[in-house]
């Protein structure tokens, strides 16, 4: 039926799929325009560096979330996990670098084990990661009950790195998105992960173990979470387990803004990057706009809804 009526379907479908990210990108550009009209300095290298640097850890965490959403899961623990990583990097990584590195690797492994258990026990990822988030928080508080510590020098100097003529934060955003793109969209492992989110039965029939796919996805998410935590620590210069608690829902919003969905099967690394930067920029715009501080979160919520509404409209047009 479909092929009788709409021979040009694939192109349209492709457009429909990239529409959400495009809408977010439009919102992003609009915000940058607003910023630069209010504060001409924004569009300079220093301005972009200042504005973008805070979004880098969020964008990386959003890639982690995206990886899990690609297999059809969701991670409600990523915020506390990133916080825990900052704590580790401000404590163990300084006092005994080797132990610190091992602990960070252990955290990645813990994510893999979490994915393993979720798969084997057939429990909803939503709840398992929620439970895990308490654990990450507890571990973080255990290591560093209140914010403090100092990050190792190399990490701090990475945070302070400012190449001439190029906004430094753009580099990690692009590099991570590229790596995640290569992994999730171009590699065989990515096919396995998206296949799991798409149709686990097909994987099983083809002799690919869904378990492996899920574990790969969780390990990747864990690694990205660690990276996000390290970048965050490099910016804050210390550890704070609750410093990223807002990331949990923000990353989900970023992936949705970038065109991802809860149904799995889709990897949108570039979309997640755009969504993350968009969300991160909201608070910058708000503070430039002199929005009353108590109204800022409302405006943030309304912007998220507006972008999603724009997406619905574009989706209708493209149908």
């Amino acid at each position, binding site marked *: *039926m*479909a*092929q*009788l*009526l*709409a*021979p040009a*379907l*694939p192109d349209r*479908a*492709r457009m429909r799929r990239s529409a959400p990210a495009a809408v977010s990108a439009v919102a992003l550009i609009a915000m940058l325009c607003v910023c630069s009209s209010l504060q001409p300095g924004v569009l300079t290298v220093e301005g972009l560096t200042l504005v973008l640097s805070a979004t880098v850890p969020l964008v990386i965490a959003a890639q982690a979330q995206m990886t899990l959403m690609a297999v059809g899961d969701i991670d409600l623990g990523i915020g506390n996990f990133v916080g825990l990583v900052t704590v580790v990097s401000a404590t163990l990584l300084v006092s005994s670098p080797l132990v610190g590195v091992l602990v960070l690797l252990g955290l990645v492994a813990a994510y893999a084990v979490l994915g393993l258990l979720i798969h084997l026990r057939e429990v909803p990822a939503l709840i398992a990661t929620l439970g895990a988030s308490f654990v990450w928080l507890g571990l973080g508080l255990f290591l560093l009950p209140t914010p403090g510590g100092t990050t190792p020098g190399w990490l701090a100097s990475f945070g302070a790195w400012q190449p001439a003529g190029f906004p430094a934060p753009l580099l990690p955003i692009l590099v991570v998105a590229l790596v995640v793109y290569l992994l999730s969209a*171009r590699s*065989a492992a990515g*096919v*396995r992960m*998206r*296949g799991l*989110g*798409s*149709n686990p*039965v*097909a*994987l099983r*029939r*083809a002799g*690919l173990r869904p378990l492996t796919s899920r574990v790969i996805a969780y390990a990747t998410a864990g690694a990205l979470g660690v990276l996000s935590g390290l970048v965050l620590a490099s910016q804050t210069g210390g550890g704070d387990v609750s410093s990223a608690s807002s990331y949990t829902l923000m990353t989900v919003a970023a992936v949705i803004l970038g065109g991802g969905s809860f149904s*799995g*099967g*889709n990897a949108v690394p570039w979309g997640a990057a755009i969504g993350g930067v968009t969300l991160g920029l909201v608070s910058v715009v708000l503070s430039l706009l002199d929005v009353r501080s108590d109204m800022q979160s409302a405006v943030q919520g309304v912007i998220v809804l507006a972008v999603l509404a724009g997406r619905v409209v574009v989706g209708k047009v493209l149908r």
Partner: protein
Amino acid sequence: MHVDNLPAGGTAPPETDTGPAARPPVVTARGVTKAYGRTRALTGVDLEVRAGEVLGLVGHNGAGKSTLMRVLAGMEACDTGTVLVHGRKASADDFRSVRMAYQETSLCPDLTVAENMWVSSRHCLPRLRWRRAASDAVRRRLDEMFPGHGVSPRDRVEDLSLARRQMVEIARACLVDRLDLLILDEPTESLGPDAARSLYAYVRGLTETGTAVLLISHRIREVLSVADRVAVLRDGAVTAERPAAGLGEPDVLELMGAHVAVPDGTGTRTAAGGAAARETAAELRGATAPGLREVTLRVGKGEVVGLAGLAGQGQQEVLERLWRPVRRDTAVNVTRAYVPGDRQRSGVLPLWSVGDNLIVTALRGIARKGLRRPAEERAVVGDWVKRLAIRGGAEAGITELSGGNQQKVIVARAFASPAGLVLLDDPFRGVDVHTKTDLYRLIREEAAKGRSIVWYSSENAEMAHCDRVYVFRAGRIVAELTGEEISEERIIAVSFNEDGGND
């Protein structure tokens, strides 16, 4: 059974049964049994597939065909018995040359065609640059099998039409470095006649190179025209194996154990002329939507209206329109109820008992001020369980029932409500003959009480139970048949009467 794509006996296989019989067996099943919980899907199967032959496998729904195929393809282990590949007890590697195209396509909808190829055929693709290799291979294979297929390796499967997906699924199965046995599980269910023809041409080409092909289909004529031998599976065991030559459709049906209930429609059916005089229960006036073009139809009170034609020509869109009317072109004057055909996804509420499932639609009508009245509900449930002889009774969990009995519950759900218009969306897929006969009777009885029924069926023979039938093609109504005009042949003739079809 669907419309047959091929004329019966038109191209009989050239070889006689002496040829393939002499060849060595590729896969042999001996005393294979398989149970899922209490369901005994296979009860002791002995079957041999020989190199270079096409073996047709037929059997009623739930006979165990798909299960047997999964066992033969090494997808699942059997409980007892053995499966031999080339006469040896098979290891995982041996099964690599046994490939299967699944009844419900086992592609990942979010992946591209090429990526799906990697999933199923990664062993014969290079480790690096596999994307390019997979694209080339699938394009070549599709060109061979379905000339003019219109599939690009970069398309996502979810964007493809059903027919193209089926093509990809079949091509996927053939994409392997060494193919000993190709299993096709109802491959032509959503293919057009041209595609089916080129598929079978390819299949014959394959057998010439020594590959065995196992073909499952409910389209008996098709099987007879392609296969060298036909095996009949009944209740989990092979009950007959015959050479295809000389076998006729009625013979096969008899072997399958179906007493073909020839509908005696004329008796129950209302006079055709009466239709116009009836009060209108619902109508579409020039409805146009994705999949629908300028459809105008009308349903009278107490009338059974059939929607016929090849699968996916707009019938379900009509049901959708009547279920969720759009004010500008649809008028529905009575309350509605819906019987979905896809009971797994749109029918059963899996955590509930039979009674709960049955009453959920009628609940609203029975309740007073939003509060349920359990006694009345129980009475209604008891009534229907008895009337349709639902095995297990009202208290049984719905998922413990066999498919046919589940379907009875879903049908009863709709008829237990006071709805004046009941929409049937191909509801009798996977239902056995006895149940079907009961349900046909129910439909006529309820129509006689003044309910209107709109009935889409992929099985044209069922249309004989209707007062009036609209035949669909590419989203349009191409014919309206009434009374004596309604017959399977007539419907098929009308459905195919333009050429072109779904590629």
